[in-house]
């Protein structure tokens, strides 16, 4: 399966080849690896890979695969489920919330022509403000949120159309 890390563009490939008792054979990024899985009473397991031993817990949440190795957390999204932002050439790029929070201000209206770097939306999360700006010239196709609204991570805030011609802009960048 192809996995991406939530909030990250990189793509990884992993597959379980076989399981025989504690022994797990997997292919990671094309390379064959042998791991050992020792389940523990608390629902977790000891996962030994490459001579290193990790305390692992895991669960599914919707399409995401959640994993902890020691204190470190991982949220993997199957590649075909990951958000469509950051894809070039899309006719209606979406400006999505980079984190859950509250929409403080919507700075544009539908039909507005915007320039690269022009602020579109101000989000507040954890009492810190984050301004989302256009990455390239575009036209505001749709405003999906209103000031004061709470939004989840990944929620679509603004839909943009290309300003002219077929070369679409790249959605939005984050500017703190």
């Amino acid at each position, binding site marked *: *399966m192809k*996995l991406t890390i*939530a*909030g*990250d563009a990189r793509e990884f490939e*992993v597959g*379980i080849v076989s*399981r025989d008792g504690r022994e*797990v054979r*997997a292919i*990671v*990024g094309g390379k064959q*690896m042998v*791991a050992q*899985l020792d*389940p523990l009473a*608390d*629902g*977790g*397991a000891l*996962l030994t*890979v*490459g*001579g*290193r031993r*990790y*305390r*692992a*817990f*895991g*669960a*599914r*949440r*919707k399409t995401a*695969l*959640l*994993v*902890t*190795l*020691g*204190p*470190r*957390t*991982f949220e*993997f999204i199957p590649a075909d489920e990951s958000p469509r932002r950051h894809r070039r050439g899309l006719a209606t790029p979406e400006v999505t919330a*980079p*984190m*859950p*929070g509250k929409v403080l201000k919507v700075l544009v209206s539908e039909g507005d022509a915007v320039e690269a770097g022009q602020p579109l939306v101000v989000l*507040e*999360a*954890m*009492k*810190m403000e984050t301004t989302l700006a256009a990455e390239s010239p575009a036209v505001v196709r749709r405003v999906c949120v209103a000031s004061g609204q*709470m*939004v*989840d*991570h990944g*929620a679509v805030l603004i839909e943009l159309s290309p300003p002219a011609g077929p070369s679409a802009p790249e959605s939005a960048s*984050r500017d703190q």
Partner: protein
Amino acid sequence: MTRRLTKLLVANRGEIALRIVRGARLFGLKTVAVYSEADASGAHLAAADEARLIGPAEASQSYLNIESIIAAAKASGADAIHPGYGFLSERPEFARAVREAGMVFVGPTPEVLAALGDKVAARRIAAAAGVAVVPGVESGELAAARGFAVQHGYPILVKAAAGGGGRGMRVVDSEAHLEAALEAAAREAKSAFGDGRVFIEKYLARPRHVEIQILGDEHGGVVALGERECSIQRRHQKIIEEAPAPGLGDATRTKMVDAAVRLARAAHYTNAGTVEFLLDGDQFYFLEVNARLQVEHPVTELRFGCDLVFEQLRIASGGKVSAPPVPRGSAIECRIYAEDAEHGFRPATGRVLHLSIPGGPGVRFDSHLSEGLEVGTFYDGMLGKLICYGTDREQARLRMVEALGEFAILGVTNTAAFLREVVASEPFQRAELSTRFLDEFFSAWHASDDATEAAAALIAAALVADGSLGTGSIDAARPIGASGNASARSPWDELKGFELWSRAR
């Protein structure tokens, strides 16, 4: 003691509400928890003797709603209110409302809160008490700020007069950003504190943040319980604190303690408080007074073997402060936040699906977390505080590394792994501390791109996908021990993935 308290309302939530309930029960008081609709299934409710709903999720309508809290206190027959930290804790109008309702406010008087809560006024009190302050100008006007910058040079710091915790604060590197910074700081301050006034201070390049814990009683007694080093900050928010401050000389410590006590006496300070200083070499400058219990109070408790909430209640009952115990050993606290340290510390949310809490000697975890708890973004994202004690700093530090290694939260991305790398790092071991620590040593931090660990994580994910790891039956979408609100969720929420907010309605 001059008055006998019987029932305490805790006007807060999360770990500090639980902490205060525990201290109050130890003191022999009945306790009343309050909660917003978003916290209807929280741990602090369970620990208290009773719990009262004070409003919807929005803090302005619940934890910041003075009327609602006073009404809950009256209805429950409470005779005292502990404000915790944040929220209403330093609002003079709240302390006044408590007093006018005939109850005891566990904290300083409204007059003291008003005087010290205004950072500009506090600067004046400090200066009058002979305590050095950071050079600055008591104005948020563009012209005044420009003038100060011309005289002292950039960078300068824009601070909210009513501020705290880094909110409404901006470092300005050059004149080009000055106006925008003044406006943003004022807007943030207005939003966070309802008071948009800002002022200007010289920005010290590499100061340490060192603070003194004080306790004052109604009889004029003031004692200090040593210092805490809180230099490791991110966005002006402390994330690692310790006591004692590494390498702090006895002479400087004594001077700082004396200055703090002098200031507290001058301000007629009562109950627990903290005098914050910036330390630059051996020079220290008054920063502000936090007129409440601090988040980081446990490091003092471990070092002094005391219970600061218990002491607060003793003082609120009219008791006298006693000579502080002899300090011993070293303590470090790490604040674990619901943030993705590997992706710009963006806030994270989710339900806690598994929780591994470290234990054993010298390890304390103050938290309201439990499995099943939904972590949202209505309130501060601190999930808990891990505090480790050692006979010396190095033992406390190593214990923290091990304890963070045992820690795990499945379901909420958090900063535990990041904190572990910081505490395990050489700069931290060598105590190369300043408020610029994270910028200097962890600015572009990314978890070690260790191929083995990456492979292990991917294999673990694949094992989750095929049902070999984790309880395949955990249905994160199903509310566990849900309040009645859960069933009110509309299909629209499910479709749009707004799950996180549904419980708030």
